């Protein structure tokens, strides 16, 4: 066990819950391991959300 397993646990039981909100972006616990750059790449491709990265 290490500290990251606690984040994995949240991703397993509450995957869609917002872990971090930042400058219009929302990262769920399931998305957290990929970080903001992956989230931004996905949202740019889908054009579903407008993200203002500070």
């Amino acid at each position, binding site marked *: 066990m*290490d500290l*990251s397993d606690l984040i994995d646990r*949240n991703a397993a039981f509450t995957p869609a819950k917002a872990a*971090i909100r*930042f400058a219009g972006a929302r990262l769920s616990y399931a998305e957290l*391991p*990929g*970080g903001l750059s992956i989230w931004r790449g996905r949202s740019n491709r889908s054009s579903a959300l407008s993200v203002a*990265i*500070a």
Partner: protein
Amino acid sequence: MARALKSQLGIERGDRIAILASNQPDYLVLLYACARLGAMLVPLNWRLALAEQTYILADAAVKALLIEQAFAPVAGPLSETFPDLQIVGIDFAAEPGQSLASLIAAGSGDGRNRGVDHAMPLLIVYTSGTTGRPKGAVLRQEALLWNAVMSQHMHDMTAADHVLTVLPLFHVGGLNIQTTPALQLGASVTLLARFTAEATLAAIAHGRPTLIVLVPATIQAMLENAAWAETPLASLRAVTTGSTQVPQRLVDAFTRRGVPVLQVYGSTETCPIAVYTRLAGDWRRAGSTGLPGLGCEVRLVDQLGNEVPAGTAGEVVVRGPSTLVEYWRNSAASRDALREGWYHTGDVASRDADGHFFIHDRKNNMIISGGENVYPAEIERVLNEHPAIAEAAVIGRPDEKWQEVPVAYIVPRPGAGGDVAEIEGFCLAQLARYKVPRAFFWVDSLPRNAMGKVQHFRLKEHAAAAAKAHSSDTEQSK
């Protein structure tokens, strides 16, 4: 991210990765990726001068640096100084280096290293010491685990909480008082890239957070903002503050509007939570910092190391799983600070008959300016390198806006002049702006005790008197 760090950068158990960035999600993602790999994260204070960053990167022997585009101009000089350093642009393609997006896209494997558990060191947080050079406090994964237990106990935190983080993540206060405890518990965190009063009040109004950590300087800025009176605070279950003795008027500004203010005491070396008041307990006890946290032993001792009785001032010493294990590759500093497992804080406090702590002063003369720790020895080291200065001493002077600001007492070399602007420029080349003295006093000699040590308390008395008089023919303020 852990897969990318391991497969693309070759990060192994025990390697160090630095980050130079304002608050953003990837800061926290990197922290937990380091935990998974058994690597250590070295957060860099973006307020530091390049020379200070360089010292830390060299001391920690960092293998990779993640850097935000806003700080890209330092990537070139750092790459020249550290040719083996792997540089990754968090939000841009670093040159030399690469972008985090491309790094993650190329990641493969399981993103795990063997033999990683909570006993592994996770953070090296540099703190300027009394020796004048920064020291890296090494904190294990279990330190963050126990720190989170204390935060959750302190705030009655649950997964339903929403933390607003406005303090910088490069300090343990911004990182660990509420942010990592909330994420580990499954709560939500909103990050502001940097604190501004306007953005913080807007985030409270629109995001409706339940918890926030503020230092006195940020509270003061919020009170002075035009939006303060109209901003609804009802969502806040508590405001947590500390870092120094907090003026009661700042506490009252929130409590008058129905928001409890919690006090926390600790330091970089304690992750930082060690002593705190509780939302469900003693937060109304005026002036008190509360009781020792769960799993944390806190004693007050005299100069011989004997515990002092209630009502008597003593040095705060802390022992427990959340305290540092050592200063990175600095056995002398580690031996000095850690004795029989007790971390000696250098702070002076007393306890009442119920065991509640009251923090009095800092034994080591540390200055806290705008929430930043400023160590006089570090500034004195720079001043003493100036060719016109024979010797220098630095103290903190009370300041309405910043709590304290550094001021310098200068003994000039024979025949040397006193060019304030030139000395300020000299300091700025080596120190962060907030460490540059706000006033200089030219004196013939420094007050010393029988052992030859500078008596900082006498300088403090002089500075206070000079500030009261508001003018002195020997003072040349900025």
